[in-house]
């Protein structure tokens, strides 16, 4: 295996896209970070112990996995993520 290190820099075609939503659970407002890569999405929410994580080709399934520890189901995740804009 080989690996190399490159630093991301602003460009017209960024390697990833970051979006942020907010979810309020039991009165606590938490950011849901959605990071889009070429082949899918990474979603993460901070909890009292750890950040959660969800990774999938689908933004809704990624968000669902990240939100599951907070007791949020598939439909709520879909409504929370809302329409995804292609950029």
């Amino acid at each position: 295996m080989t690996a190399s290190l490159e630093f991301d820099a602003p460009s017209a075609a960024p390697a990833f896209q970051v979006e942020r939503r907010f979810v309020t659970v039991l009165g606590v407002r938490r950011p849901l970070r959605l990071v889009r890569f070429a082949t899918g999405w990474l979603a993460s929410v901070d909890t009292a112990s750890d950040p959660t994580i969800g990774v999938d080709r689908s933004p809704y399934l990624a968000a669902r996995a990240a939100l599951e520890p907070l007791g949020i189901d598939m439909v709520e995740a879909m409504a929370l993520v809302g329409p995804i804009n292609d950029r």
Partner: protein
Amino acid sequence: MTLTDAPRDVRAATLTAIESALAQFDRAADHLDLSPDSRAILRVPKREWTVNFPVRMDDGRTEVFTGYRVQHNMARGPAKGGIRFHPATDLDEVRALAMWMTWKCALVDVPFGGAKGGVTVDPRLLSAGELQHVTRRFATELQGVIGPEIDIPAPDVGTNAQTMAWIMDTLSMHAGYTVPGVVTGKPVGLGGSEGRADATGLGVTFTAQRALAEAGIDLAGASVAVQGFGNVGEAAARLIHERGGRLVAITDVGGGVANPVGLDPARLKAFLSETGTIAGAPGTDPIDNAGLLSLDVDLLVLAALEGQVTARNADAVRARVIAEGANGPVTPDADPILAERGVITVPDILCNAGGVIVSYFEWVQNLQSFAWPAEQVADRLRQVIFAAYDRVSAVRDEQAVDARLAAHAIAVGRVADAQRIRGIYP
């Protein structure tokens, strides 16, 4: 259930059932941006069986029948789906119906996967004895395939509570003890649930009422046309009539009846039991399927078979709301035409889910050896189907999509999520 559905030769389908099911799945998968792996798993059935079995007929002949059972997906629980006896049933149709069952169970959030079965036979041409022999032999062929923890059949087109009782008895004889949870839709005296017979029609009525309200129309006083007067159509017509809906036209396999002042479903049912069709009932005018589909009504209930409203005839539909009591009565190529004309469609996997919801209740009651009263069944059905209606409305509005896509996206998303969590064995 009786065979009072539109016959296949009047169908004007531009897409077959399996083509429609796959087109709807692909649209939901595109919307969710499902991974190629998830698509590959969900696009095909998990298991399918074709069985050819001999039956001794009353005249001494031996006839060989062909039957099918398809289990589309079991990621969320045991498979669930009806068995139909129909002369046009084939493997592709059963595959489509099994896939729709997967989505339906996921949408209403009951812990089942999807399955369907059928025998290519016209039950009206068999004696009661022959029908029992076909049923019991088909059930025997499915031994090990169906069971309370594996796959639980229910009535569908051309089958009924008696058919389920024969299947339950056959598999119980083989097991050596009574296995009530192997099928649902049984007679109440054999562990069937109160309210199961009317469950699909009641769910159609509940969801149609909600959709009419969205259009600013009260069901009481609304004009209603119903295609199909079998188990679903008759129950829906009766329950809508009880709530003040004005039934202006109904069709069945033998023809149709119309009366702008209103039809009495109880009288039509009595006429049907005497003659085998509602066509020609006293005090009614004749109407055919094409005429019924083009009526200017508040609510059109499609409770016959799949492929009734297509791109070829969608332009003629003038109803404000369509309630899909049958599976796949509106083909995907007709959806945009109806949407453009402002027709509100209650998609089949939501509209006719009352049957599988109460089947789930029956399965739970059987596993617990306990029976709920009819009022409790109806109340829980209303809660479950209204919750599903609310979820579809929320996703439809949040994501600015039509109700069918919203329903399929929720269902496919849930199944894909369950599949992802379970992972791939080994």
